[in-house]
C-alpha cells in the first residue's frame, strides 16, 4: 500500500523539527503509547496499547531512522505487530518552508499489512490512514502552537492532547464522510489502530533521536 501526503504546520521549520524530537509531546499526541526505548543508535522499540471498538491489543514495534538530514529530511523503517496483525513500512519525510513561518511536511512511503487488519479492513486502509495521519499531524500542530505561544510569552503553556476516545471519534467521523456502510466499522478500527501505532513510532521515536 502506498502512503503519501502533505501537511502545513503553522511554524518555522526548525521548530517543527524540534517538536518532532520531543518524545513527551509525541507520546501525548498519540494516546496509548506505553513505552519508547532507544536500543541502538537510530533504532527504537516501543509498545502501544490500542483499544478502539472491538479491536484491542498491545502492539510491539521497532523503528529505524536513516538518511537523516536535519532539518530537511529522513527515512523511517517501521515494523510493528500485535494481536490485530502486523505492519511494516518505509517512509520518506521531507520538510520545507514554502513561506515565512510555515513548514510543509511531505511524506511518501510503502506499507505492508497482514493479519486481522489486512483480512478485514483492506479496502478501507487508504481512507483510515489519511484520517489517522491527518489527525495526528493536527494534534502536533496544536502542540506546536502551544509551544510557540509559550516562547513568545516566556511561559510554559500546557498542551492538552486529545484523549484516546476523542482521537478514535475523529477517525470514525472521517470514515463516515466517506459514506461507508456500517459493517466496515470494525475493519476501520483495526486499521486505525495500526496506523496510530506506526505513526506513534515514527513521530515518537523521531523526537528521541534528537533529544538524546
Amino acid at each position, binding site marked *: 500500500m502506498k502512503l503519501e501526503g502533505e501537511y502545513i504546520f503553522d511554524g518555522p521549520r526548525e521548530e517543527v523539527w524540534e517538536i518532532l524530537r520531543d518524545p513527551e509531546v509525541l507520546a501525548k499526541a498519540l494516546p496509548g503509547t506505553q513505552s519508547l526505548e532507544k536500543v541502538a543508535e537510530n533504532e527504537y522499540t516501543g509498545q502501544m496499547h490500542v483499544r478502539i471498538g472491538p479491536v484491542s491489543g498491545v502492539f510491539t514495534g521497532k523503528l529505524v531512522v536513516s538518511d537523516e538530514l536535519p532539518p530537511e529530511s529522513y527515512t523511517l523503517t517501521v515494523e510493528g505487530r500485535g494481536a490485530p496483525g502486523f505492519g511494516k513500512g518505509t517512509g520518506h519525510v521531507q520538510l520545507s518552508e514554502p513561506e515565512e513561518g510555515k513548514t510543509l511536511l511531505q511524506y511518501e512511503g510503502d506499507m505492508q499489512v*497482514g493479519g486481522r487488519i489486512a483480512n478485514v479492513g*483492506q*479496502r478501507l486502509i487508504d481512507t483510515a490512514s489519511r484520517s489517522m495521519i491527518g489527525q495526528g499531524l493536527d494534534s502536533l500542530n496544536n502542540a506546536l502552537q502551544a509551544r510557540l505561544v509559550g516562547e513568545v510569552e516566556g511561559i510554559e503553556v500546557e498542551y492538552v492532547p486529545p484523549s484516546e476516545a476523542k482521537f478514535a471519534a475523529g477517525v470514525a467521523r472521517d470514515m463516515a464522510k466517506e459514506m461507508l456502510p456500517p459493517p466496515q466499522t470494525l475493519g476501520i478500527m483495526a486499521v486505525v489502530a495500526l496506523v496510530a501505532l506506526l505513526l506513534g513510532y515514527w513521530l515518537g521515536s523521531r523526537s528521541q533521536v534528537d533529544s538524546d
Partner: protein
Amino acid sequence: MTQKHVGRRMTRTEDPRLLTGQALFVDDVQMPGMLHAAFLRSDYAHARLVSIDVSAARERPGVVAVFTAEDMGDDWKHGPPLVSPPPTVEDIVFHSRTHVPLVKDKVRHAGEPLAIVIAESRYIAEDAVEDIWVELEPLEAVVDLEKALDPGAPLVHDDLESNLAAHLVQEKGDYEAAKAQADLVVKRRIYIDRGAAGAMENRGIVAHWDVRAQQLTLWDTTQAPIPIRNGLAAMFGLSSHQVRVIAPFVGGGFGPKIMMYYPEEVLLTWATLKMGRPIKWIEDRRENFFATTQERTQVHYGEMALTKEGRILGVRHDFLHDTGAYDPYGLTVPLNTQSHAMGAYDVPNYSSELKVVFTNKTIVTPVRGAGRPQGIFLAERLLDIAARELGIDRLEIRKKNLIPPDAFPYEHKIIDQAFAPLVFDSGNYLATLERAAAAIGYEKFIAEEQPRLRAEGKHVGLGIVSFVETTGVGPYEGARVTVETDGRVSVATGVGTQGQGHFTSFAQIVADQLGISPRDVRMVTGDTAEFHWGTGTFASRGSVVAANAINAAALSVRNKVLKLASKILETPEEELELADGQVRVADLPHRAIELGELAAMANPLRGAVEPGTEPGLESTDYFGPKYGATANGAHAMILEVDPETMMIEIKRYVTVEDCGTVLNPLILEGQIHGGVALGIANSYYEQLVFDENGQLLNASLADYLIPSATEIPPIEVLHEETRSPLNPLGSKGAGEAGTIPVPSLFAQALEDALQDYGLEILEMPMSPNRLFELLHEESKTP
C-alpha cells in the same frame, strides 16, 4: 412391488426437528468439566518459525494447557494423504506433501496453527492466545500460479526443486493430427479464481477420552466419520472399536468437511488423550477463511479444433492447478477438471498437460463442483467462441457435438479421479438440452423478444449450456436395516448428513421395500457406533452408493420377512405382499401379520434356535459400483445487465437435470437450488482475494460477498430420467449438478446481453467491478 414412495415429492421428515431446535449440532454438545480450545495462527503466509514463547499464556488464570509442535514429541507427524497417490507410472510426477498439526519449522499459509491453548472457557483461551510471543521471519510468498514455477521463485517446500507438486499428461487420439485438419482452431487463456465453501456452520469438534471406559468419543462436523475414526484410532494406537466418531446434524458440508485429518481433529484428540477431559473447539468465521480448505484456482491455455460445419475434432488444454500449501487430496480436483474438459460432447482427440502447483495459500480440496466447473467452463467457452467465429448458432453447435444416446457406455479413453478409465454410463444429452431450450423459449427469445427489448435500450441476454457430472464413485457404502418389534424400522448407514435430506429419501427406499410409511423409519447417519464400515458423503454419491446399500439391506430384510411370514401364514412367498406395515396374503388381505409381531417372532426363544438361525429381521448389506455414474443436464438463463452499474438481474433460470431415478423430487430441487446459488456466487459474487504477500484481503462476510435470497432468482427445475445401469435403483448423483455449469452459462449470457461491446469473458468469477473494467480496458463502446 408397487413403487409408492421413491419418486414421491415428500416433505422432509428431519425438518420438524431442525426447525424447532431439537437437532443436535456439535456446538450443542455440553459435558461436565469441558475445556475449550483456541489456536494461535500465523499472520504470515510464508515465514520461518524462529521461536515461540508460551510461558505467559500458561500463567494466565484459567489456562489448563498450551502446546506447541515441540510439546507433541513423537506424536507430531505429517498427516496421511487422504486419497491414494497416483500409480507410479513413468510420466506421472507426484510430490506428496501433507500438512502438520502445528507448525514446527516453517509457516506455509496464513492461518496455519502455531499453538493450541486449552482453557476453562473460550474467552480465556482467546486471551491466552494473545499472550504467546512468536518470532517469525517472513519469507517471500508464493502467490501467483504462473510465477510460482519461474526458476528462482521462492519454495513452499524447501526440499523440492520447484513448486511443482504434480505433473501429468493425458492423451486421447492424436490432437495434433486433428488440429492439422481443422478449419478453425480457437485458442484462449482462461482463468478461474478461488472461492470458499462458506457453509453456514463452521467446523467444530468436541473430543472426549473417557479414561474409565477407555473410550474416545469425537463429535465432529465431518463428512467422513468412519475414515476419521479409522485414522485417529491408527494414529493414537487405539482399536477402532474404542473410538466413536459422531457427525451429528451438520450445517452444510460442500466438500471441505471431507478433508481429514484437519490439524484441529488431531490436536483435540491428542490433547484429550493426554488430559482426560472433554475439549471443545468451534471454528470462528475468520478462522474458517484460513483453516478450512478452499478451491478453484486454475489457469488454462485451451484450444479447440473444429471443422467449418462446427464439429469438434479435438480439445487441448495445458493447465496449472493451485493446490495451496499442501496436497493431501492428491489429484482429485484437477483430474475431475480433465474429466469434464470435453463437456457433454463427443470429442475424438484430446490432449492435456496438468501441472499442480504449491502456493502459500490455504490447502485446496474439493468444494462442491470439485474441478468440474473449470472443465465445463473451458469446453463451453471454447465452443461459444468457435460458434461465433463459424457463424453457427450456439444451440446448433452443441446439438451437433453432444454424445448421442446410442453411444453409451461412452469410453472416454482417459483416466478419471480414481485413475480408472473414464466412462459415461448412460444418458440422453440431446433431450436435456432440447428441453432446456424449449423451456427458456430459445427460438422465440432470439427472434422476437431480444430484438424488441434491445430496441427499448435494454441489455438482455440468454445463456444455454450443457454439462456432465461424474458422480456416485466407490468404493462402497453399507447399511443395516432392522425391523423393530413395534413395527417401525431402524436404519443405520455410515455416511454423515449435512442437509441432503437423507433421513427422508433413504426412508422412502426402505418404505417401498417393506411396505411401511417412510415416517416409520428411524434413520441414523454418521455415528460410527451405529455402523462400522463406510467412506463418507462426497462426490455426489449419497443417493447412489449409500442409497443402493440401503436398498440392498432393505431387500434382504424383505426376503427374511417373506420367508418367516410364509411359514407362519402357511402361504408361498410369491403370494404374499408387504403393505401398511403388515405382511398379508395378496388375495386374502385378512390373512395378515403385523411386521412388529413378526419381528418379535424372529427373535427366537430358548430351544427354538436351529443351527444357522440368525435372530431378528435385520440385515447388513453393502453396495459398491463398478464405476461412477455420470449425470448430465442443461441450464438456461435470461439476464439483464444495467450498463451503468453493471448490476445484473436474472429474469429466468431453467435447469434440466438427468440424475437417473429421482428418489424425491422435492429434495432434488432443493439440491439444485443450492447448487445453482453457489454457481451464481462463483460467477458474480464470491472471490477470495489475496495480495502479493499471500494475505487474504476479504476474510469476513462483510467483504466476501455470499449472495443472499435477493440475488438468487426463482429456479425452474425440470427432469429427464435415464436410469443408470450401474446400480439397482438406477440413480445418479445430483449434489454438484447445480453448481457446475453456472459460470459458463453466466459468461455466455453476459456476452449476449452486451453483444454490442464484442466482449469475451475468459475468467471467473466476474463482478460488477470486473465487468466494468473489461468493458473499459478495451475501450469498447457500443
